């Protein structure tokens, strides 16, 4: 079922003595959820994502705007008549009922034409339980289940009445890391199998990226960006979105554009075109900072420095280097190809630490123009790099650099390219 939200606004009235003025939780939110897709609502806590969920399921009434399920306007329908399924953050299982009774509960409340016979209910409940693989736990009480099992019961309960849409409010936040990964895949599988339009709320960008078809990034009730996960990551519209997506988070520097070059601190790190001279924020993804050995950066040539993207690409880079192809300029839009050439170490920072994470190495460094006390670069652990000197020089991958306006924090479309190759 297609879900349409039209100019949805939700204001909470001021409470006397506590807060002055009303609080706008959701501000003019318009969005169309395509049929059968899994949409991730992503944002920091307090950004209004749960309010949207509550508006969708009818627990809150919008101040203005309309909600449509398919062709039906459901804006004024109370929660009990909307026929949505919801998985709550703490699962909200009925503690006095067994798993089976919990799953049966929504069916027992069906009225009129939808009313089912006892046997039908039973078979529907069994079917839902099989789908989430809890059919052996039917006689237990929620208190006797593990967190992951409770979560599955909650999903089964939400699914059993074949809801028009399925809503999930941070359903994974109570699970441990390993279980979270597993359940995340499970949710994805169930959603694909049932093809129920699903809205998934989370503040965990990794979670949202991994399972959503479409991500909606929100901040303070306002939609920032809507798009496919990779697209948002590669092409953020503003500084907030760029900062919110990605672990470790993007490194942000105060910089400026002068004479077609991008300056951070006292260094010009990249060439830029398509933008006038101005003060900017420079966002560089951790994987866009590539440590360059001192000797090679001295030579000024890219050298044989491998890009940390696995052996295949590395050899491709080498190949390119060997036959002397010029590096392909990356398009700032992020849809360009990854430059395979070696990089010049144009950007120097003070090294402050190296964290080994097994697959990757996280390099922590300090730079005075950085917005955060620490900047991070992630490189492959296979890359045996000498990381002992005080000053580390980074090469910058142009497709991982984003420029933002200093005032509006909006993205500036610009084309970056490595330095020294313009002539």
């Amino acid at each position, binding site marked *: 079922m297609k879900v349409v939200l039209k100019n949805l606004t939700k204001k909470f009235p001021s409470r006397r003595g506590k807060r002055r003025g009303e609080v706008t939780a959701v501000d003019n939110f318009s969005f169309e959820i395509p049929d059968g897709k899994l949409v991730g609502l992503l944002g920091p806590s307090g950004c209004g994502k749960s309010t949207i969920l509550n508006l969708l399921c009818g627990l809150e009434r919008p101040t203005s705007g309309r909600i449509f399920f398919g062709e039906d306007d459901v804006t004024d329908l109370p929660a*009990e008549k*909307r026929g949505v399924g*919801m998985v709550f953050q703490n699962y909200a299982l009925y503690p006095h009922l067994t798993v089976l009774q919990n799953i049966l*509960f929504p069916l027992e409340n069906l009225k009129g034409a939808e009313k089912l016979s006892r046997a039908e209910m039973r078979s529907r409940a069994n079917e839902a339980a099989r789908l989430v693989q809890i059919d052996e736990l039917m006689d237990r009480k929620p208190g006797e289940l593990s967190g992951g099992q409770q979560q599955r019961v909650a999903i089964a309960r939400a699914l059993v*009445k074949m809801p028009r849409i399925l809503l999930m409010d941070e359903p994974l936040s109570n699970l441990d890391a390993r279980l979270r990964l597993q359940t995340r895949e499970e949710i994805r599988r169930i959603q694909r199998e049932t093809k129920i339009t699903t809205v998934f709320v989370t503040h965990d960008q990794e979670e949202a990226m991994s399972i959503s078809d479409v991500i909606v990034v929100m901040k303070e009730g306002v939609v920032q960006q809507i798009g496919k996960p990779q697209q948002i990551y590669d092409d953020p519209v503003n500084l907030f979105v760029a900062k919110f997506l990605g672990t470790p988070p993007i490194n942000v520097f105060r910089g400026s554009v002068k004479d077609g070059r991008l300056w951070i601190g006292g260094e010009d790190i990249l060439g830029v075109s398509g933008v006038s001279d101005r003060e900017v924020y420079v966002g560089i993804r951790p994987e866009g900072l590539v440590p360059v050995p001192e000797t090679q950066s001295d030579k000024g040539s890219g050298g044989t420095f491998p890009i940390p993207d696995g052996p295949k690409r590395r050899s491709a880079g080498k190949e390119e280097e060997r036959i002397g192809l010029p590096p392909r300029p990356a398009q700032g839009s992020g849809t360009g190809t990854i430059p395979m050439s070696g990089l010049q170490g144009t950007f120097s920072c003070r090294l402050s630490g190296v964290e080994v994470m097994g697959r990757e190495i996280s390099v922590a460094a300090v730079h005075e123009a950085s917005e955060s006390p620490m900047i991070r670069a992630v490189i492959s652990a296979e890359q045996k790099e000498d990381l002992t000197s005080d000053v580390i020089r980074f090469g910058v991958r142009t497709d991982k650099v984003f420029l933002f306006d200093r005032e509006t924090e909006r993205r500036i479309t610009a084309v970056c390219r490595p330095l020294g190759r313009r002539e």
Partner: protein
Amino acid sequence: MEISEEKEQHYMEQHKNTGDEFKKIERSDRLRRKVLKTFTYAGLTFWALVVLFPFYWMVLTSVKSYSSYNSEYIPKLFTLSPTLQNYKEAFTAVPLAGYFLNTVIFAVVTTMLMLIVTVLAAFAFARLNFPGKHLAFTLLLSLMMIPNELVVITNYVTITNLGLRSTFTGLILPSVSSVFYIYLLKENFEQVPDQLYYAAKVDGTSDLKYLRKVLVPICRPTIVTITILKAIECWNSYVWPRLITDDEKYFLVSNGIQEIRENGFGRENIPAMMAAVVVISVPLIVLFLLFRKVIMEGVSRGGTKG
């Protein structure tokens, strides 16, 4: 070789020593525990005797004959000629069976009505939003500050003005609402997480259905507790029934006991009264034994359970 053997022997000796030591500690610990247990049980036994003695005295007196009771200058702690005469007397001298029935009706009806009123009121205060909710609840709570005796007088005036003296309605009406139980249950309802309410809403229940199918079952221990407490309260109530009923038709057992007591030949007929008391106590004791577990559960977690 020799050295190592020596070492081994030494080690063994040491080991043996530590073994002995261990046994010694264990022995003394066992002794200490035994002593402690003895003292504990002795204390508990003593306390049980203190608590149970009045009951024993009650039963003992009820099986002594009127004459032997009155002839004992210092009451004896046992009797050699038990009699059931007093029980016969209790039922024949006054219509005790009728009073008994009255009390059952009074207790059952009052408790049922009280339950309905309390559950609904607690739900309204805990879950619903209506203007003046907090004011209403504060006023209700402040009623708890007013001693019962004061309320009895105003209630008496009200019920008399309504012309409900010597009727079951007049007996029952003032006991139907209970501020404290509403408060207790409201607190209990509020402990149930909001999300369950939302979940129930999304699952398609109305407010009333949520109350019936989710809230009440979850708070069952508390509800059972207040039911039993209320039933006991009704069973034992004396002042109000005494005030509001002049007609023997509406007397409760408490009035009956008083009547039997005054029924002796110039003196108080204590054995007959005790027999009546025994008869009256039995249902309560049975009730308590039946629901012992639930009552304890309700009292011990009285509100902490979510």
